[in-house]
């Protein structure tokens, strides 16, 4: 059974189509990423999938149940980590899990039995009685992850799971998510951290302006959407150099401030040319997901 199938999903707000015909499907046990700039329609897509808002058109099936018709039944087997922490500030860590388990109709004894292993998993062993008001941002995220696991869900939906966390805290979340994948859970996440997507996701879809504009594994996307080599050229003279010479050596280049990004099949001629330009600094690297993302969604700010 597919954990989630979305076909031709559409949703408008005030005449503006925020989700404009989105289709994708998750296979059991995979991690699927939805990438996109702010306002691309990722969160609206998730809200539709959970049955929290009714789509204008399209079909949704969450853990085999039609949504929104049977969204409540579907959510029995789904765990959600929302974009912004909404733990209960009046409760300690264990109470947060206890109260949340009751929303699934679980008995207190069954929930209490699950609390110690979940706190352990979240790296919060010994913090059962700690008020969440004193937890760090990373601890809160991990407790939210533990809360999403209280019903032992088949599918975990995470909206920007590491936003606002320091590198140590992000790595810990990634490691825990990999453990969940290893134990057979399916994960759907949204992110705009490309390293996060490249590290975690088996497959991903890049969204922009309500549409999926590319879909595949990170390697497929890099191989299929963009030249394999990137040479970054820095310096005050870089934009001038780009205008004069970049076109001769690179099929495609982009200027961003004092940096020029040259996308090439073979970097050797460009590097040889740049070796003659002492006023410019260069960095040669393989293309990555961020290059794909910026190529497809552009460099302008999306506020």
């Amino acid at each position, binding site marked *: 059974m597919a954990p989630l199938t979305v076909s031709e999903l559409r949703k408008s707000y005030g005449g503006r189509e925020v989700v404009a015909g989105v289709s994708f499907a998750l296979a059991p046990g995979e991690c699927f990423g939805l990438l996109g700039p702010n306002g691309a329609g990722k969160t609206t897509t998730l809200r539709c999938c959970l049955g929290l808002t009714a789509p204008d058109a399209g079909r949704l099936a969450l853990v085999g149940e039609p949504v929104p018709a049977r969204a*409540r039944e579907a*959510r029995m087997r789904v765990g959600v980590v929302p974009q912004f922490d*909404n733990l209960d500030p009046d*409760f300690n860590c264990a109470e947060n899990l206890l109260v*949340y388990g009751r*929303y699934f109709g679980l008995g207190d004894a069954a929930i209490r039995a699950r609390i110690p292993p979940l706190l352990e998993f979240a790296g919060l062993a010994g913090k059962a009685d700690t008020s969440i008001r004193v937890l760090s941002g990373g601890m809160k995220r991990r407790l939210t992850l533990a809360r999403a696991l209280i019903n032992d869900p088949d599918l975990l939906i995470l909206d920007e799971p590491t936003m606002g966390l320091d590198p140590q805290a992000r790595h810990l979340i990634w490691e825990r998510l990999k453990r969940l994948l290893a134990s057979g859970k399916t994960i759907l996440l949204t992110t705009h951290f490309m390293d996060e997507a490249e590290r975690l996701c088996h497959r991903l879809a890049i969204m922009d302006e309500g549409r999926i504009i590319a879909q595949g594994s990170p390697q497929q996307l890099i191989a299929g959407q963009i030249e394999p080599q990137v040479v970054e050229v820095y310096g005050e003279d870089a934009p001038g150099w780009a205008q004069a010479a970049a076109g001769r050596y690179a099929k495609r280049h982009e200027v961003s401030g004092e940096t020029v990004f040259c996308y090439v099949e073979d970097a050797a001629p460009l590097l040889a040319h740049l070796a003659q330009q002492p006023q410019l600094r260069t960095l040669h690297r393989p293309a990555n997901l961020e290059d794909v993302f910026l190529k497809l969604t552009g460099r302008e700010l999306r506020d």
Partner: protein
Amino acid sequence: MRQHLLRPQLSWRALAVWRRNFLVWKKLAIPSVLGNLADPMIYLFGLGYGLGGLLPQVAGVPYIVFLAAGTVCASTMNAASFEALYSGFSRMHVQKTWEAIMNAPVSLDDVVAGECLWAAAKATLSGVAILVVITALGFVHSPLALWALPAIFLTGLCFSALGLIVTALAPSYDFFMYYFTLLVTPMMLLSGVFFPVAQLPAAFQAGAQALPLSHAVQLIRPLLLGQVPADALLHIAVLAGVSVVAFAIALILTRRRLLS
């Protein structure tokens, strides 16, 4: 918009929402009850003895006894309103507690129903606490007063549902001032809490009949004075009717706010 008008999808999960609020309340139960008691008791003693000393009997009883019954009703209304407005808004808008709950298999309708029942329960506690104190002071003698318990709950339910409408519309806490200043306070003065409605000019008397608090007072005060209320069924029907209609409106407005 159309899907916001569908009939309520309620389940027993609403009780899990109620229990969540109860667990928070339990941590602060004693200060909370004392806080709910202090303000009305100060008014009751201040006005009851101070003003009551100047008055002959009111409606056949000493003024403080008359006022005590009104205070039970007004406090129930206030407690329900504060819970549904300020605390409800905190959970809905500030803490995003409702959003967290809706990611579990609990519908928004369950959340609103749980909140409504919770505010009604807290209001009942507030009204009953005052009832206990005035009974201990000897202002209430009749076993008929036991019938006031369900009447207090119904009053709480009515004002909880009305309060949730305001919460669904509120952009911020400041908005609640309008509700209290324009509706709650005038209702308290027009509904026979402090003085018999018969003292009002005729036009106001007719208007008072439209106020739910006035029905609560006409239902509860006789019971506390040991009389069977006149038109009890009418008062019950008004309070229950307002509860149902207000809950339905609150549900539609909250769905529009959170589910679009």
